[in-house]
């Protein structure tokens, strides 16, 4: 046991306790040297009892020679648990704490050394990345500037071509009318038939359009069918209770089947056929009139359970219906390009329906649009397509494609003689083609400008160290889920063919040590999903430890060189130096 007047006192504070009367640090009172560590709390802040458990706010210092010193809560002193590796916190003889500092210190030093090594390498990588980022950004900026000027020129050319095209078309129209007059009588009957054809196609087109329009208001339709459903249940029920009880359950089953059928019909209106599953019905029931009668015993059990569990029932059925979803995926893929997205969209609108909030529904619609922009796969792909597409445009070394176009335009504008009649067909076609090509190129440039500006708008950190995260996604597989984090865009959880949005990019937090994704898919009975990605120094960009500590609030860890900061490296080195100093010389380099 160390002497009472130094027990639990850090060496740098030793002076403070030298005098005969010592002040409580909070200034509340004074105490005598005899009261120092006399196992009675005189200072509420614990000044007088650094070495005992008498004061609840005190701190106990252990030297831990061979390892790092430690400052403990007083509550740990003589509590029967060894906290200091030198065992100095347990001195009342009730437990024996072996001194493990040398061993622990060795391990800790080794760990620290390894960490320092990682940091060293990481700092170098980070430097490179910062440089690359700067380069990339200035390149992008240069490209953007150039594209903008190109855009200006090209816009002018397109306008010229357009004007010319329209002039030609006017002349053509005139010619055509004359021609028509000649042929009118001859071909009158045939033309009539043509006209009719054209009409009917148009009408059909309009009808289709209306159908699509309906998609915007799924809940109304569902609502209506829901009401009908419930009426039906009620009616069924009444019939049953007055009739024979024995037939009841059969009737109930029958009715459940009816509900299912109705659901399918309702849903088929949304082109999401075969997406019916029992949980859907269950959910509807909960949030609708909550009429539980007429459910099968199992459905009723699941329904009641789902009140407590919320999503659990959904998940349960999800498993059951995995096969079904496979089918869905298979069939819908042929019809639609982004089945997952659509499927999710359906789910979300279901959610929406449940909360019955029209305003939210609108929000949701907005989000759908955003989805299109933000979806990682989509944007990644389209970006890369752009990239390849633009290779001919952006390879600045080659003599400008723009010059070529300008030349061509000049040529054809001169070549085409508007006053020549009839107009040279090939010339007209040529102009049209040039116009089409040029405006395609213009819109490509514009889209490139917009994607570049968007990219440059992002906050890539004080040294742009996160620039390389743009256009990248990090994945982590845990059991049946794949977590996908795309910085500056969004994060998702993929299970088989279904994707759940964990959040859209919001910002960096915590001095660029955390990435925040928020406003993900809504939880059935909880908040909107969100994800916090804590960043650590590491040599590779690696996503680990995805966790959901609170319902629908996810956290993950991403190790990345971007976090390998030089100051931190210095700090660690300093710590190691201290540890080495504490180390008894004799043990050195054993």
């Amino acid at each position: 046991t160390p002497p009472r007047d130094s027990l639990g006192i850090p060496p740098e504070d030793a002076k403070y306790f030298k005098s005969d009367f010592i002040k409580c640090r909070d200034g509340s009172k004074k105490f005598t040297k005899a009261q120092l560590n006399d196992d009675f709390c005189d200072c509420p802040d614990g000044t007088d009892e650094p070495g005992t458990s008498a004061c609840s706010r005190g701190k106990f210092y252990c030297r831990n020679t061979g390892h790092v010193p430690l400052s403990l809560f007083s509550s740990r002193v003589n509590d029967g648990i060894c906290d200091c590796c030198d065992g100095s916190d347990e001195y009342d003889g009730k437990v024996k704490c072996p001194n493990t500092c040398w061993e622990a210190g060795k391990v800790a030093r080794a760990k620290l050394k390894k960490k320092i090594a990682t940091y060293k390498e990481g700092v170098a990588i980070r430097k490179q990345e910062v440089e690359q980022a700067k380069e990339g950004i200035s390149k992008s900026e240069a490209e953007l500037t150039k594209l903008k000027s190109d855009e200006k020129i090209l816009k002018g050319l397109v306008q010229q071509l357009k004007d010319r095209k329209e002039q030609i078309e006017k002349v053509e129209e005139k010619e055509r009318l004359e021609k028509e007059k000649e042929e009118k009588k001859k071909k009158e009957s045939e033309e009539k038939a043509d006209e009719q054809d054209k009409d009917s196609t148009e009408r059909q087109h309009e009808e289709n359009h209306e159908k699509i329009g309906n998609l915007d208001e799924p809940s109304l339709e569902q609502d209506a069918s829901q009401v009908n459903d419930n009426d039906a249940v009620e009616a069924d029920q009444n019939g049953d209770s007055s009739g024979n009880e024995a037939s009841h359950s059969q009737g109930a089953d029958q009715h459940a089947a009816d509900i299912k059928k109705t659901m399918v019909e309702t849903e088929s209106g949304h082109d999401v056929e075969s997406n019916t599953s029992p949980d859907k019905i269950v959910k509807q029931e909960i949030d609708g009139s909550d009429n539980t009668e007429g459910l099968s015993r199992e459905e009723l059990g699941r329904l009641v359970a789902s009140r407590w569990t919320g999503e659990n029932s959904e998940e349960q059925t999800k498993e059951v219906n995995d096969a079904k979803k496979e089918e869905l995926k298979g069939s819908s893929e042929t019809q639609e390009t982004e089945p997952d997205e659509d499927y999710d969209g359906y789910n979300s609108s279901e959610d929406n329906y449940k909360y019955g909030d029209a305003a939210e529904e609108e929000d949701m619609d907005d989000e759908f649009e955003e989805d299109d922009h933000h979806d990682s796969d989509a944007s990644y792909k389209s970006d890369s397509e752009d990239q390849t597409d633009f290779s001919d445009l952006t390879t600045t070394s080659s003599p400008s494609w723009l010059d070529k176009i300008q030349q061509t335009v000049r040529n054809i504008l001169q070549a085409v003689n508007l006053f020549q009649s009839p107009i040279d067909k090939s010339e007209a076609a040529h102009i049209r083609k040039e116009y089409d090509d040029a405006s395609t190129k213009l819109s490509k440039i514009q889209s490139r400008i917009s994607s570049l500006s968007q990219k440059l708008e992002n906050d890539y950190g004080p040294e742009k160290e996160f620039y390389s995260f743009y256009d990248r996604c990090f994945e982590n597989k845990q059991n049946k889920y794949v977590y996908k984090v795309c910085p500056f865009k969004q994060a998702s959880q993929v299970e088989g063919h279904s994707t759940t949005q964990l959040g859209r990019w919001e910002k960096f937090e915590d001095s660029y040590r955390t990435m925040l994704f928020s406003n993900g898919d809504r939880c059935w009975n909880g908040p909107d999903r969100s994800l916090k990605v804590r960043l650590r120094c590491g040599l590779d960009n690696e996503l680990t430890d995805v966790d959901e500590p609170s319902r629908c609030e996810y956290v993950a860890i991403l190790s990345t060189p971007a976090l390998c900061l030089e100051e931190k490296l210095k700090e660690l080195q300093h710590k190691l130096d201290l540890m080495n100093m504490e180390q008894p010389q004799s043990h050195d380099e054993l």
Partner: protein
Amino acid sequence: WKKEEFRNCNQTPFCKRARSRKPGSCSLVATDVSINDGDLTAKLLPKINGNSEGEEEQKEEPNKPLLLRLSVYQNGILRLKVDEDPTLDPPKKRFEVPDVIIPEFNDKKLWLQRVSTEVINGDSSPSSVVYLSDDHEAVLRHDPFEVYVCKKGGDRVLSMNSHGLFDFEQLRSRKEGDNWEESFRSHTDSRPYGPQSISFDVSFYGADFVYGIPEHATSLALKPTRGPEIEFSEPYRLFNLDVFEYIHDSPFGIYGSIPFMISHGEVHGTLGFFWLNAAEMQIDVLGSGWDAESGISLPSSQGRIDTLWMSEAGIVDAFFFVGPEPKDVVKQYASVTGTSAMPQHFATAYHQCRWNYRDEEDVENVDSKFDEFDIPYDVLWLDIEHTDGKRYFTWDKVLFPHPEEMQKKLAAKGRHMVTIVDPHIKRDESFHLHKEATNNGYYVKDASGRDYDGWCWSGSSSYLDMLNPEIRSWWAEKFSLQNYVGSTPSLYIWNDMNEPSVFNGPEVTMPRDVIHYGGVEHREVHNAYGYYFHMGTADGLLKRGDGNDRPFVLSRAFFPGSQRFGAVWTGDNSADWDHLRVSVPMILTLGLTGMSFTGADVGGFFGNPEPELLVRWYQLGAYYPFFRGHAHHDTKRREPWLFGEKNTELMRDAIRTRYMFLPYFYTLFREANTTGIPVVRPLWMEFPSDEATFSNDEAFMVGNCLLVQGIYTERAKHASVYLPRGQSWYDLRTGVAYAGGVTHKLEVQEDNIPAFQKAGTIVPRKDRYRRSSTQMANDPYTLVIALNSSQAAEGELYVDDGKSFEFEKGAYIHRRFVFSDGKLISLNLATPKSGYKVYSSECVIERIILLGLSGVKSALIEPTNERADIESGPLRLQGGRGPSVLTIRKPNVRISDDWTIKIL
């Protein structure tokens, strides 16, 4: 709460029928009155002279005589039994709940020797009068039949059938055309034995209020449910149900049932009535004047509260308790159903729960966070998700691959773990428990005789027939360390869903026509199902520890006697201020009816509490007998460190307050264990003659020393606190004294709720905080002496090993501290006998705080003749405010010794 999913009285034929009966419709008269086997017995028969028409429909067949038996027990307990005569060959023996009345009660029976027959107060018929106690007599009036207790030769105290509402539907065989089925929503109850309900009126004389009959989320003093000026109300329902999002302020039945009512009045004191019956019960509290048109006037000038008791089945087995003090009534009730089990010390500390701590890493993180923030806690709980697919006694292999190691890590810090074991057993052929239960025929049977198959967490499930002692014993074996793979001795159990909850059953429970052991119908045993399950589980832990490790089992469902098996909590409450508020009357009511070890989920189970509500809940919950934070899995995490530094500090302080008072709480748990007097008490239990306390359920007493009142509103600036009359009260934070008999308007701070120590009391504390209560065992004590106007005070301290049953053999320390005439004396309350075990402790008292004294400088300790300084110091080392108080510094006397400290 889905109102329409539960039956109201009108949808419950027996209730509707009983409620519509008119006073005086009972036509029974007592005949053949005599003394048999020390009891007063009689037959009840309908009056022959055909006076019974009127409102009452003529019965299809004449009733056979009912057997009535009145027994008398020590301490003023009258027991009344009415049942069918087994010798007259009824279709079935009616269910009489076994295993609730403790064996010792039967030893207290007084053998009646004589009965006197007299005509009282100008009655038209004679009454038979027997001795009940030195002050009381029990009376059976013959015609019309009535049973009552009165003071010797004086006022009535308690009576039954004074309004002639007694009705007993005898079992009969089904005749052609009888349709006994009852339907509710999509469920049909086959009711093979037809109507068999019982109802009667009970009157409490000299009563200002009635209390008890949990479990309802409502006020402590029970509001009338019928009578003039009372809008329509349901009766108080006693039917154990798993009610999703129950609402506050409702007479609706929730998880547990105790048909025990207590009345209290200023003049007449306290009375109790207990009906041991496990079938669905409905109880009306009748507002005064309800019987104005009945033409019945009871021979009493005193105030009175009438009640109507209705049960679907069973027999009459009722107990009248005469008090007269509040504590006498709870003792009388405890002598029938038992006192509460002595909990392990750790179980009286703070519990941390959530649905669900997901995996071992989560557990480790939460555990280490408590240490990081220096917040003590003792028990970490695992909800249903820790199991392999809701197969209890198993572990999810991915989430909890090393359960033993995990528990050992906690145990190394003196902490414990609790896992959940529910009564629904997954119908899975590969699950050994299901296979065994199926093969042994251990499941309850549905009406067609097959194993009942219901739906719960585990999906398709069956339920063990816990009424059968053989099955309980088999069940108990499942808790052995060998059978419960992955369990360790530091693991304890939580029984949830034992109402039983059946998701696809009628009213989310088991159909009433399910058959139990001995052909008992579920309707007859329903309210006791959870009780038997709790019993079997507690037995299991007892067996596991070779009978020397006190079980800890938390149950949601309960019944009279559940106090012997462990703790209960108030179920799935909600994170709102109303639920915080109603937790107090709920816990007080449970305490009055024998359940001492109770609490509400701190923070509220459903929903996300605002930090302020959470802090207030911790501040109140620190005084609940059972102190556990819990949350639904859809809620945000709410461990105490998640709401910023300030709130962490406030919650830490609240939790530490509980740890500081642990010695006091443990002493109170021992008092409850020996006497049945609850740990937390309504004010009127401590101040039975202070009328202002009778309906106060905002504040409560912790033992007889501390008064606590929660803060139940947001951003409260002030609170009105009534401090009972007779003495002054010291603020626990500041030591400032407040006068009694006054409602004080107090300023409210965010760092505490109003709490006071009564003048004249001594409270033992431990002011050093540790990781868990386990490490506090050797820490020194603080005594807080709050002097009354005659400069006197007294208090107690009980200590034992906190774990085993050695205390039952005398291995404990029990001291009484008495301060008077300027000296503090420690007296031994333990009664050592030869051969008794000894519990020794090195613990000393490091600090004695003297409230209400001034101008003293030192103290002399005898017999050592040492001196101790008296200085001024803080009332609390942490979170104290206000002026300093006189403190005897380091007297260092041992708690196990006799000593005297003289103030000089």
